[in-house]
């Protein structure tokens, strides 16, 4: 059992960050919201309606890039509108405009593998945003980027969010990233996974790196870390028991 009676409210046009100890089921939550995974029991509801599968109203940006390698950036971004029945040249010009907006002007005809990791993530965010989803889901989208690119991507993503204001659920395991981006932070508890606490982040936008040295940031960080620590210990303890079992199994030669 991973999730039980887990329900939370996302403020419309706000950026909510989902943070929790590893193994808590953060990815499972967003995959279920996106409709890629089904709960083994019960149901997933968004706005009171049951999630019956994936759809362009809820877009998920994957952990590592899931851009189609065989399509140019334009084709990737225009894919959603085309499938929605938009005329081809309209979809393409809209895609190119959005690519320019995320700083990929001039790379429209490139294939994803010709771009850096950070560029791929931006293209993927564009591919999601173009469908004007009710809900934008991001599952640790900046994982695997080097420290510098990650910082830049956070700043960039924050600015982009201020422009489009799509209701966003952003999954991360990094406290700094969470506070830098969030309007509110949902801290998850470890199994059964549920909302442990919701913390508002009242820091004004636009935000930049100076945020990290402010007093309110320090207070927030301590609060989130305390909560996470409590839950991480639980997860760790479960792992420790598992290890003990393994030891015993090894001793009797199982």
């Amino acid at each position, binding site marked *: 059992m991973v999730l039980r009676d887990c329900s939370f409210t996302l403020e419309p046009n706000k950026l909510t960050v989902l943070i929790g100890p590893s193994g808590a089921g953060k990815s499972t939550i967003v995959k279920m919201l*996106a409709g890629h995974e089904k709960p083994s029991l019960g149901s997933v509801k968004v706005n009171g309606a049951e999630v019956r*599968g994936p759809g362009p109203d809820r877009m998920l940006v*994957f952990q590592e890039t*899931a851009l*189609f390698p065989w*399509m140019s950036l334009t084709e990737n971004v225009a894919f959603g509108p085309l499938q929605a029945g938009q005329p081809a040249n309209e979809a393409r010009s809209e895609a190119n405009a959005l690519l320019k907006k995320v700083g990929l002007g001039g790379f429209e005809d490139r294939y994803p593998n010709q771009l850096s990791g950070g560029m791929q993530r931006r293209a993927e965010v564009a591919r999601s945003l173009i469908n004007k989803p009710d809900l934008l889901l991001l599952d640790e989208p900046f994982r695997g980027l080097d420290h510098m690119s990650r910082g830049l991507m956070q700043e960039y993503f924050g600015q982009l969010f201020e422009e489009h204001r799509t209701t966003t659920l952003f999954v991360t395991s990094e406290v700094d990233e969470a506070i830098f981006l969030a309007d509110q932070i949902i801290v998850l508890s470890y199994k059964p996974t549920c909302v442990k606490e919701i913390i508002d982040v009242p820091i004004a936008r636009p935000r930049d790196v100076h945020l990290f040295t402010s007093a309110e940031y320090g207070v927030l960080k301590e609060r989130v870390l305390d909560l996470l620590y409590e839950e991480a210990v639980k997860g760790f303890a479960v792992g420790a028991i598992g290890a003990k079992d393994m030891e015993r199994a090894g001793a009797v030669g199982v």
Partner: protein
Amino acid sequence: MSINSTLLQQAVGILLFFAVWQMVRTLGYLVLLPSPAEVAVAIPSFIQQEGYWMSWVSSARRVFLGFGIAAALAVPLGIWMGTSTRARQSVFPILEIVRPIPPVAWLPLAILFWPSSEMTMVYLTFIGAFFPIFINVLAGIDNVDIRYIQAARSLGASRGAMFWKILVPATLPSLFTGLTIAIAITWEVVIAAEMASGSDGLGYLTWNSYMSQSMVGIIIGMISIGVAGLLSSVAMNLIGRTAAPWTRR
């Protein structure tokens, strides 16, 4: 490394091979073999012989016929079995039993079954090409990253788009791997088939040189077969790179 120096190095490698061969002959070893110089001298008259270029045509026709039929059957079958569990469970076991049988092992049965030796040879090349194409299409479909399918679903892909815009391009590189392996195998098979039951073709030419005790003929026949296989592989590679340009770096 630039293209020019790569080419240069490759040329040096080939020249070195012939140099060693020539040297061995000059030193008086391997007297059975003609020297590269003797072969080189014989080439102009040999390739002007009646039937030399026809041998190319005959073999190439068999290769491409068998290969073409194999591709036309193996690709849809691979897609069908890659997308339907029921199809895979019912057809895959028998194919797995037939697959390890070397194409040449089909020869006795094929000679008895097919009314002409031409059909026998084409059938053998077909068998040789079928399995590598089939297996690679199947593997290609199996290895399509689930995230591409999920992303396409989120983006509202229709069934047609899911097939033509996602599944097919995702499988294409693997398909061309299969085709490149298959074309090389068809050349191996057609040569064996021609030696066994042909009356023309590069395999027959080489065998016939042996029968008429023309050592130079054997060597030129072998080199011709090598060049034919190489050209086919290079062509297939080029087609693959053109069809799947995103795999180029």
